[in-house]
């Protein structure tokens, strides 16, 4: 394919197809390599999910799992696969996707591979909110989720307000975020130190991020919220790429830089907040998924869809290990994402180095 192909625009030696629907009223450039990577990642994620559904104290053969999912299994198998195991596994997939997408937004906004919602203090604030509820009030699941949500959102707002003076600039946002989250992290350490050992441990397990014991009643709300957030985020993916060119270039392309940044910030926080409220602050997926996806697709910047697919894969895989690695002991999934994601990342860096 030539670099300047009249049908496909500038291809930069990447396989690009243009798709047009409704008599060219809707058109979109598709990067075929990115598309195929996304499909493969999703296929692997679903395969892992199927294996997770099959395994446990009560083993179900894979064909029976598929039959149960299609609504053709009876009695015990239906109960185990669809009612007990499916909500948790589905949560792992969609929450992982949300984390990857949120991470991509933040790394693009800050243009920093260390960029993540932690940067504006969301996770630290959510943990503070949850700790207050757990330690001072001994709250229920919903109280903890509410506390985390309020803590995280108030912190994010505070950081944004403190960083605001005639617009928010990336660098100032980062510095203010560091300051506020450092203070909250200290506060969290102090609360954990003062609490009784059992309470502190329960709180720390929540703080690591865990899917243990999450059922259908948690899946419903999370899926509903994400069904609204994800399309909104996808609509912003093109302005997000344009904003990466710098404010001036983005304005020249017709992007309202300040409004786009605020919109992306809100969406990134909302995606992360949904996960934190549901399962606690699951670490590392938001940080690693965009970078892993970028390295596999070979694109210049981070992008939302591959990051989401990678996030789903990471969390689904981590959840399988969290359940099975030390069975019957159930690990918090956050611990596994952190270790597993880290190992994979190291492997990828080494492989990249060998290829050069």
């Amino acid at each position, binding site marked *: 394919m030539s670099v300047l192909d009249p049908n496909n625009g500038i291809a930069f030696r990447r396989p690009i197809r243009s798709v047009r629907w409704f008599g060219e009223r809707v058109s979109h450039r598709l990067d075929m390599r990115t598309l195929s990577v996304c499909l493969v990642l999703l296929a692997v994620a679903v395969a892992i999910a199927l294996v997770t559904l099959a395994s446990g104290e009560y083993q179900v053969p894979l064909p029976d799992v598929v039959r149960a999912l299609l609504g053709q299994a009876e009695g015990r198998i239906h109960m185990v696969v669809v009612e007990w195991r499916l909500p948790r596994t589905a949560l792992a997939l969609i929450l992982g996707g949300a984390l990857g997408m949120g991470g991509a937004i933040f790394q693009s906004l800050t*243009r920093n591979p260390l960029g993540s919602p932690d940067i504006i203090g969301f996770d630290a604030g959510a943990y503070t909110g949850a700790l207050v509820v757990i330690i001072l009030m001994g709250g229920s699941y919903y109280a903890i989720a509410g506390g985390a949500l309020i803590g995280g959102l108030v912190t994010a707002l505070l950081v944004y307000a403190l960083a605001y003076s005639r617009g928010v600039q990336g660098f100032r946002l980062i*510095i*203010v975020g*560091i*300051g*506020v989250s450092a203070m909250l992290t200290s506060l969290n*350490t102090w609360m954990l130190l003062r609490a009784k050992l059992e309470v502190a441990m329960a709180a720390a397990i929540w703080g690591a991020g865990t899917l243990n014991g999450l059922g259908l009643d948690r899946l419903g709300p999370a899926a509903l919220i994400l069904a609204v957030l994800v399309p909104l985020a996808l609509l912003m993916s093109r302005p997000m790429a344009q904003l990466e060119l710098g404010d001036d270039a983005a304005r020249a392309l017709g992007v309202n830089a300040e409004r786009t940044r605020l919109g992306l910030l809100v969406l990134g926080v909302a995606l992360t907040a949904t996960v934190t409220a549901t399962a606690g602050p699951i670490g590392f997926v938001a940080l690693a998924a965009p970078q892993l996806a970028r390295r596999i697709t070979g694109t210049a910047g981070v992008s939302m869809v591959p990051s989401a697919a990678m996030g789903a894969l990471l969390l689904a895989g981590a959840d399988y290990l969290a359940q099975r690695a030390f069975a019957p002991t159930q690990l918090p999934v956050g611990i596994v994402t952190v270790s597993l994601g*880290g190992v994979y990342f190291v492997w990828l860096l080494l492989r990249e180095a060998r290829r050069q």
Partner: protein
Amino acid sequence: MSTAVATSRDLARQEEKRPGVAQSNATRFGWLLVAIAVLVMVLIASVAIGSKDIAVGTVFDALFAYNDSDDHAIIQALRVPRTLMGLVVGAALGMSGALIQALTRNPLADPGILGVNAGAAFFVVLAVGLFGITTVQGYVWFAFLGAIVTTVVVYGVGSAGRAGATPVRLTLAGVAIGAVLSGISSGITLLNPAIFDRMRQWGAGSLVAPGYETLWAVLPFIAVGLVIAMLVARPLNAVALGDDLAAALGANMGRTRTLVVIATTLLAGASTAAAGPIGFVGLMVPHVARWIVGPDQRWIFLFTLVLAPVLLLSSDIVGRLVMRPGELQVGIVTAFVGAPVLIALARRRKVSGL
């Protein structure tokens, strides 16, 4: 190299290029004298203030005309060792942060990036879990060993391949390996209440160590680290211009990077071993120094050396005052003392846009 990473480096470079508050060497020197005066006052305050307040006159008597009174004994046996520990650990933490920020050209980098804290914590978990060690003196060498081993592995992964240890690869390798170790650490602690309890104490960070034993143990490593830091300050100025330009100017990039990593490991490893993981000092103080003096690493290092102990010691003093007669661990206080300053500076200074 990715666009995302390249632009983040441009951003850091834009920020670093901005002149500081003090624009001539004479005013920088004046500021340095002010900073040193503040440090001296904080040192005296750290000896005088505590759960038992001691008059400044008595403090000087205890130092220069010792008699066996209670006040003198408190000062000689407890307050002075603790203050010296704060001075040394503070300087080491600040300097390790300044080094790693200069090397990676990433304003978010702190010594933790090289996996120092995660490595130290992991080895302390092993010390408690496998060997049943429960004394602070017992942890010191495990923590130090953990910090060194981890940094060597991070550097190995980060520098694999022909491109060598580029800042981005080093940062990503550090984050990844640090994550693996802290994941395993929290896995072990969350399954074992006794280890969890130990680790939440150690993790808060504290300057309290009876006598000088710990201080003498880590001092040689910190001294070597500081000397190396002073030697690489000038080549690091060239690093800020980008790898190609630095090489064209005659800076030996490979040697500079290796020296910086060695110095950072010694400084951060030794201070973490002595006082536990104390965050924020290494991250914040170099930013403040840069705001005062501008982009010259030699001045940044000098100011960091003075300002970091000021932050650590004043945090320690605050920790002694807020919950009398109890105390708050210094690692918990540093962020509360330092963060408001950092935020105020970020709001006041006009920073260049993205």
